[in-house]
């Protein structure tokens, strides 16, 4: 504490439920206001890229899937696209459609998971349970298609590993329609509730300029009005045929604030958009082969001599994933760089948290949807080493919601 300027330093993390990722946020606090933000990321570096330089491309594909517990398919698609661009491998049309269906199912479950976390951070636990109950439907469908709920193992280099037979189509269409039809109810609960509105409207504002200079991606950038969506910009896989437009908040409210409310809105609209894409993809899916080479051993033999640089990009639920791969004709990739969306969105925390209140930290930090699991959190205030538990900070947030609710009655 510096007595002359009355600021305290508070550190949130490293392990922390709102962040869901071991990240340490150091904040300067003046009274209730955040006046300085800094973060440390060193807690979970696993050296996956290093491990990949001693594995063959097919093994790396499955390693890539394990980078993220939620958007695992994004990394598989990005890595495959990078290797495919090195070898000029053409993916059959049917495989493109199956990739889109898998990716969009993933987006639905990721966004709904996040919506639940946002509700929890605001102190609406019943809403959290309701949204997570809705999420079960898509997870069951993913299991029905691929055999697994989360790590789908659906992608291979040059196509997909298993087909979706026709008899499974009705169930996928049902799921898509389920989410289209529940959009209004979700919108009612999240977007029209006065208390949620006052906790999120004009809180944690990211201006369009800040979104551009901090290189933000995905819903975080789109909520600030940046029209950036790899699905449209690259029109890869079957997205060209399905006509995807980036979702901006003004489509619903007619204006762009770039606040937490807009980020909630963009994600809810994207759930609806994904449901529509899935339905169209299932109906338009062409017949034909599902992979460039179906047998893994034969595929590996063809991949080994590849040499060159490749970039693979994909629009994951949180934004653009980009993989850089260098192959040198040996069995292992020579270099592999993975850039997940949170890497870029992290910089947005600084303008987002500036001048906000302590009780808003959980929901603002969570609003960029930083990616990973959650356990515990400790807050260290001042020089007296007063350590509050994670419950304390959460309680502050819940208290604020309750007070607002009382005032509004």
């Amino acid at each position, binding site marked *: 504490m510096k007595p002359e300027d009355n600021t305290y330093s508070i550190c949130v993390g490293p392990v922390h439920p709102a962040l869901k990722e071991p990240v340490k946020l150091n904040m300067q606090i003046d009274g209730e206001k955040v006046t300085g933000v800094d973060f440390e990321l060193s807690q979970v570096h696993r050296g996956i890229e290093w491990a990949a330089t001693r594995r063959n491309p097919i093994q790396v594909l499955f390693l890539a899937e394990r980078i993220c517990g939620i958007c695992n398919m994004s990394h598989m698609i990005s890595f495959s696209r990078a290797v495919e661009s090195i070898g000029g491998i053409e993916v059959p049309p049917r495989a493109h459609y199956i990739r889109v269906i898998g990716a969009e199912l993933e987006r639905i479950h990721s966004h709904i998971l996040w919506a639940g976390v946002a509700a929890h951070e605001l102190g609406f636990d019943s809403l959290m349970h309701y949204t997570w109950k809705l999420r079960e439907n898509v997870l069951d469908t993913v299991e029905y298609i691929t055999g697994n709920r989360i790590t789908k193992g659906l992608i291979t280099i040059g196509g997909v590993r298993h087909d979706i037979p026709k008899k499974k189509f009705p169930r996928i269409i049902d799921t898509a329609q389920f989410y289209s039809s529940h959009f209004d109810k979700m919108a009612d609960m999240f977007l029209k509730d006065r208390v949620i509105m006052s906790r999120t409207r004009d809180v944690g504002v990211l201006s369009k300029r800040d979104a551009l200079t901090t290189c933000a991606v995905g819903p975080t950038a789109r909520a600030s009005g940046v029209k950036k969506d790899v699905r449209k910009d*690259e029109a890869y896989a079957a997205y060209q045929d399905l006509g995807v437009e980036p979702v901006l908040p003004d489509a619903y409210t007619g204006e762009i604030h770039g606040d937490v409310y807009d980020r909630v809105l963009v994600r809810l609209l994207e759930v609806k958009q994904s449901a529509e894409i899935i339905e169209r993809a299932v109906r338009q899916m062409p017949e034909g082969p599902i992979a460039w080479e179906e047998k893994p051993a034969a595929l590996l033999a063809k991949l080994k001599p590849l040499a060159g640089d490749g970039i693979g990009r994909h629009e994951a639920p949180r934004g653009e994933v980009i993989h850089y791969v260098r192959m040198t004709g040996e069995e292992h990739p020579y270099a592999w760089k993975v850039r997940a969306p949170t890497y870029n969105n992290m910089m947005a925390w600084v303008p987002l948290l500036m001048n906000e209140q302590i009780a808003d930290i959980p929901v603002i930090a969570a609003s960029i949807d930083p990616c990973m699991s959650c356990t515990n959190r400790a807050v260290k205030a001042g020089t007296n080493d007063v350590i509050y538990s994670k419950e304390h900070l959460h309680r502050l947030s819940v208290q604020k919601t309750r007070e607002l609710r009382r005032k509004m009655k």
Partner: protein
Amino acid sequence: MNAESVLKGFRKEFGSKIKDITIQKVPNSLKKKLFAERIWFSVGRKHLHSAVEYLCRTYPDPHFAVCSGYDTGKEIELLYHFTVNYGVRAGEITITMRVMLPKNDLQTDTITDLIPGAIISEREMQEMLGIKVKDIPDSRRLFLDDTFPRGVFPWRKDETGPDKIARNVHAARKGGMK
């Protein structure tokens, strides 16, 4: 706008300062034959800053994706990945600038004055490859913990690489890093 026109501008501005130019066309869509265009070129480290400045001037708000880098033996190669022309269907162009740094002089200029969001990548390159970014606004470690030994750089493949501290990791000696 296409890759050719972007490159024409670069050639006009920098002439022989940019080398090894390739345009990669990645087939994208199904019905209409569209391509994702990827431009790759090398630029001397003296001209990196002016190349990025030219990019920012010509195409306002280019998206800086990430900087990747690797050890080629005698040199460190850095690859700055940018994208321009987003928001146009199948119109986005990826531009990658390669910069070679000799191992006896691992220094490069910062681009954070042009693109503030590049700070994460620059801090990462400093700790992972042991290079020095001149005038970087914040040179602390980011992904590596403070307890990680100094002088060990995880992305290097020479004696400063992570091999010696990874000796107990399963199959660490198998293939790859020699």
